[in-house]
């Protein structure tokens, strides 16, 4: 077996009396690993521990063979894309990524060149001189990814990276993540959407209530989720036109409208997501801004798993 990129031994984290992570021992192999769990499952706590932002209450973490807490040099090899939508809003994307990579020891010229390459890698070059405050949600996600990969780390840790992206960008980002893995990078990506993770990797860590419930192949979980209706939230300019399209599909079990959006229940999530992406590409139903899956899908699966 190849050397694990992240190793935890009896790792626990408490926030006062509240347990964030409970006795987790895991070896994360190289390649892409999906960290899957509903909100509040402990995904972010796990990622903060393996990125050295939190100190373990108990247990050990090593990342790429080194302890991570209080070890700034380790950040040469790690790039982290956090979940929160937080930025220096008045800076341009290029200025922000440049300023951050200068903290990696790059001089000004190197930093600008590296920042431009990273911004190009996330297809944001045309907007590099716009202020981040003027970016759309998808662009903000991408600039966040650019700052994570700007120093060419061997390990990328991405916390819910596809949140807020439109279907096309989501597909391109997934391809990008897979390309980085092909170039030899290891990637840990968290999500609460099984189908997102599945499209990137079959290697998952399933987490709930601060514990790793399962690790390894995604297919068993996938079989389970497919037996249950899956809810998808689609925000579009023309929700009614989109809904009309959906009515023609056998797998659509129900539809309801929310402000500027349609909430669809489907029995075949894979087929549904593929169709939404195709529809977005053809522009037949106008722009589709956001496709998200509420937590309750995965929560339902976890309820079955822990029974």
């Amino acid at each position, binding site marked *: 077996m190849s050397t694990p990129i992240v190793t935890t031994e009896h790792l626990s984290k408490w926030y006062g009396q509240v347990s964030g992570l409970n006795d987790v021992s895991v070896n994360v192999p190289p390649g892409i690993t999906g960290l899957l769990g509903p909100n509040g499952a402990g995904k972010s706590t796990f990622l903060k521990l393996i990125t050295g932002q939190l100190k373990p209450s108990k247990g050990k973490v090593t990342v790429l063979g080194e302890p991570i807490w209080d070890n700034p040099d380790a950040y040469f090899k790690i790039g982290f894309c956090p979940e929160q939508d937080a930025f220096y809003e008045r800076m341009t994307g290029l200025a922000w990524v440049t300023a951050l990579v200068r*903290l990696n020891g790059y001089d000004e010229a190197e930093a600008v060149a590296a920042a431009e390459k*990273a911004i190009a890698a996330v297809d944001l070059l045309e907007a590099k001189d716009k202020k981040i405050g003027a970016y759309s949600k998808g662009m903000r996600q991408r600039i966040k990814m650019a700052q994570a990969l*700007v120093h*060419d780390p061997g390990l990328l840790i991405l916390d819910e990276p596809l949140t807020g992206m439109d279907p096309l960008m989501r597909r391109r980002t997934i391809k990008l993540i897979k390309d980085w893995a092909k170039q030899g990078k290891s990637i840990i990506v968290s999500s609460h959407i099984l189908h997102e993770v599945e499209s990137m990797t079959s290697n998952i860590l399933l987490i709930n209530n601060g514990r790793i419930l399962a690790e390894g192949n995604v297919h068993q979980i996938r079989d389970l989720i497919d037996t249950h209706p899956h809810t998808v939230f689609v925000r579009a300019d023309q929700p009614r036109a989109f809904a009309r399209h959906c009515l023609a599909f056998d797998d659509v079990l129900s539809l309801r409208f929310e402000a500027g959006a349609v909430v669809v229940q489907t029995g075949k999530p894979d087929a549904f997501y593929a169709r939404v992406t195709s529809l977005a590409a053809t522009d037949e139903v106008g722009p589709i801004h956001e496709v998200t899956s509420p937590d309750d899908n995965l929560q339902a699966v976890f309820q079955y798993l822990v029974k």
Partner: protein
Amino acid sequence: MTSAPANVPAVAPPSLPVGRRSPSLWVAAVRIFDLSLARMLWSRGTIFMALLVGLPVVLAVLVRAVQAIGGPAMRVDGQMVTGPTIFGFMVWWLYLRFIVPVLALYYGTALVADEVEDKTITYLFTRPIPRGAVLLGKFLAYFVCTVMVVLPSLMIVYFLMGLSGATLAGTFPSLLKDLGLIVLGLLAYGGLFAWVGAQFKRPLVIGLMFVFGFEQAALIIPGSLRYLTVSFYLQSIVPHAVMGEGVMSLLQSLVEQKASLGTALGMLVAIGVAFVYLAMRVIARREYVLEQ
């Protein structure tokens, strides 16, 4: 929908230059300073800062206007109070006892707290730099930012009030001392409140109690408590007679003590440097749990 060209190929991320090393504490701090200065100047506190430093300017303009239209002269104990005397009063009571500590409190306690509140601290703490460099860089930004706004305010007030009836050459040394005092005050209070902000959960309350409670009381209580204040060392070297009011002033004059110039200067610098160092140590060990 977010648009992006569909056929843009994925570009390989940049290669890591061989031999890359962590920037030193100082270099990292300077880079954090670069990142923070503009953000600090144009932050939520900008209006607050402008109001604070604008207040003495407005007061000086009003006094000058009253004098210009032949209004009644200010008198204390039958003696006419001149512009330079009012200027000296403003330097001590308005700048050194109010504006400097309040600005230091507002910005000093928020050095890292602002990044935590805005959830941008993650980007700084996941870079290969010592965490202390984040605080040091932000402290430098605070220091430059406040010096850049307070000193011009003091100089305007000086030209409006302090110069009347005297030559620039004659009073310039005194102005330089005032400017130096402001800088030392911003350094000492800023360092102290940077540590308070890093160490305690309610830094504003603690800071307000220190400046407007403890320091006020310590200066009038006989004994050595005053040595634990910043204002004692500032008061020891303020070039103007510290004019006060009523009972407070009377008590102060009864127990008046001063540190020597060297001691006062040394202590002000030491307070600033020591507390910034302590704050850096706190930041290096502390976990920040961002609210989800």
